[in-house]
């Protein structure tokens, strides 16, 4: 009996040999795999570097500080080709990319949400138009759409600058650009800004006070009735105190182009519009799916409580739908940001176009493309981070 017990004890305490210990083996397998991956990457990179050096093409990031030498007209009023290095040119290109991406994201979201809701409308016409829109834009290539919009806009708009479509407020639209007056702050503009800021602060404070009054007494809050006069009043005061805070630079037709004022080039307009229309189709479908995921009982309950259609959408359905909408929406945002590089096809000077020029002038394709990838990666990761934060804020909270 005691012998058996001791034998049992011995077997229990006998150390497992390492080649049979699952914990050791797991670690070993992973270490081996890691080494293999590192070795593989090293071989690839070493191969590239050696090969490039052998063809007299050693990777040289120093080309980034060389002179760029090409004019960037797009959206850069003070770009000096004589002074610009390749790096500052890349930054100028990035500014152009961001001009497209930021406006594109906002536009695509608004249009997408609108169409997504219209897609579910009980109105036959509205619903059919939305469905056609989504199917048309989702199922044709973006590059084709961009060409179509760019060439189409060019052929549809007046060729002669003197015949430009003129909108009130000195806005001229022609094949080349939308020219509009540039409003610039004078030296006294900060006084006006301070007035507006003060007005805004008071208005927000009043809004909080009124909602509290409403909560306590049940009297209607009438926020606008209180806040708007405060905002307008303080702003007007700021305007009067500062004298004349703004000067306006109007576009004037010269021999070849409009001078003065500001402009959105045809390339910028076409690219931004194309990205908005294309991405909105995807966003619309995401919004539709999100809304349809909210149980129908919620709608019935809202109706029973006497919510109006708009209130129901704003207060009951969208907050719940957003949780499902945000993650796939983030993907579409990333797509839009990256698709902006297609602008090169229609002559838009974005960061991709600039990188191409540098690569072609210096032959340093690897160095330039590494930098360009880093720029796009940083942009995409920023968008991802923002969307993740939003997702966190919108998560379902249990009480």
């Amino acid at each position, binding site marked *: 009996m005691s012998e058996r017990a001791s034998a049992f004890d011995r077997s229990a305490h006998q150390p497992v040999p390492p080649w049979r210990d*699952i914990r050791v*083996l*797991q670690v070993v*397998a*992973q270490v*081996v*795999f890691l080494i*293999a*991956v590192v070795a*593989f990457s090293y*071989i*690839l990179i070493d*191969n590239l570097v*050696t*090969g*490039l050096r*052998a*063809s*007299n*093409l050693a990777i040289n990031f120093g080309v980034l500080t060389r002179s760029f*030498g*090409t*004019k*960037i*007209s797009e959206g850069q009023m003070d770009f000096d*080709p*004589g002074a610009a290095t390749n790096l500052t040119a890349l930054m100028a290109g990035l500014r152009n990319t961001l001009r497209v991406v930021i406006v594109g994201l906002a536009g695509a979201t608004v249009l997408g949400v609108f169409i997504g809701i219209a897609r579910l409308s009980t109105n036959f016409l509205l619903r059919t138009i939305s469905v056609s829109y989504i199917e048309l834009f989702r199922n044709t290539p973006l590059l084709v759409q961009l060409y179509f919009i760019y*060439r189409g806009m*060019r*052929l549809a708009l007046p*060729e*002669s600058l003197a015949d430009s479509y003129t909108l009130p407020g000195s806005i001229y639209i022609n*094949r*080349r650009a939308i020219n509009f007056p540039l409003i610039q702050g004078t030296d006294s503009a900060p006084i006006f800004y301070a007035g507006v800021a003060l007005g805004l602060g008071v208005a927000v404070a009043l809004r909080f006070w009124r909602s509290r009054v409403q909560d306590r007494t049940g009297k209607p809050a009438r926020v606008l009735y209180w806040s708007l006069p405060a905002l307008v009043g303080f702003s007007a005061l700021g305007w009067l105190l500062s004298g004349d805070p703004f000067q306006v630079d109007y576009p004037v037709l*010269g*021999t*070849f*182009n409009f*001078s003065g004022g500001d402009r959105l*080039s*045809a*390339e910028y307009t076409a690219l931004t519009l194309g990205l908005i229309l294309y991405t909105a189709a995807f966003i619309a479908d995401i919004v539709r799916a999100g809304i349809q995921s909210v149980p129908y009982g919620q709608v019935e309950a809202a109706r029973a409580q006497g919510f109006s259609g708009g209130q129901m959408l704003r207060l009951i359905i969208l907050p719940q739908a957003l949780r499902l909408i945000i993650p796939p929406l983030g993907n579409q945002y990333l797509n839009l940001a990256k698709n902006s590089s297609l602008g*090169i*096809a*229609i*002559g838009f*000077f974005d960061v991709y*176009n600039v990188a*191409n*020029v540098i*690569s*072609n*002038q*210096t*032959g*340093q*394709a690897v160095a330039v493309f590494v930098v360009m990838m880093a720029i796009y990666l940083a942009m995409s990761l920023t968008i991802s981070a923002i969307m993740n934060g939003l997702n966190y804020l919108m998560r379902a909270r249990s009480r």
Partner: protein
Amino acid sequence: MYRLARRLVYAGFSLALVVAFVVSLLPTSPALAQGGSILDEVRQRGVLNCGVNGGVPGFGFLDAESGEWSGFDVDFCRALAAAIFGEVTADNLQFVPLTTQERFTAVQTKQVDVLFRNSTWTLSRDGELGLDFGPTNYYDGQGLMVRADLGATTIEDLDGASICSLTGTTTELNITEAMENRGLTYELVPFEQSSETSAAFQEGRCDVLTSDQSQLAGLRSDSADPGAYVLLDEIISKEPLGPAYLANDSAWADVVDWTVFAVIQAEEFGITQGNIDSFMTTEDPRIARFLGLGDDNPSGSLIGLDNGFVANIIRAVGNYGEIFERNLGPDTPVGLERGLNSLWTNGGLMYSPPWR
């Protein structure tokens, strides 16, 4: 235990995959592929890959209906194929249309063996791109084409104009410099494709189209109403265009260079596609040397080619003058004069080293 075994199998499998991949990569890595000349590779392959322009009439143009390649640069590709293989067949010459963006990388990565694609020879390209340039086969200069109704005659008249150009070219650098030096304001609109650039110009996006003069002439000939555009007389840069190939391959460089020299020398001797056969029994020792006639006249054999390679080239494409007249000359839609591209004996710059 079963899971562990599975894990090990996975790890082993991944490792094997990785190793297999690495091994499969090794022989093709540029570091290890050194030693042989591109000439040997082309011979072994039986096909010459020639990088050309696909959309500039007169230089490199693919006819959409017939599928035929034509153009000045295209004929030099044919000349090179004839020099190497004796004749040009449907199988031994592959044209690779390249954009300005792709062209140099295509040479660096050996996607093409040689580049005949309106590429300007510059110091930085020669030094840094890992390429060498061959003899200039077309002396060009950058010009400006404007709409005739604007009435502009000099660059100074173009203050405030919108200018269309091809992105990533020396053209862009030159026009920027020309406008900045004169203190003029301008808008530069950069396109990736030559066709898109000329469409933008013709449809009124720009007042000015700038490119090499020869290309402007080609694009104007291809437009709906050539009379609506004028070329300014001013030339703002030197653009020597010629073949480019991978650096440090002397054997291949010799073959490409002497193919270009052969068509130039043939014009100087008056040898044409039509009369080449009458020269095969020539008494003139210079022509006999040039054509490699007889055992005591080594010609192509000195650079690793067939001794009769010059005759093969002339039979395939003719001499320099014939190539020029066929693609760019006054009788073609492009309608260019020889100018700087005349033979040196006629006051031009076309000059071949001695064939001895």
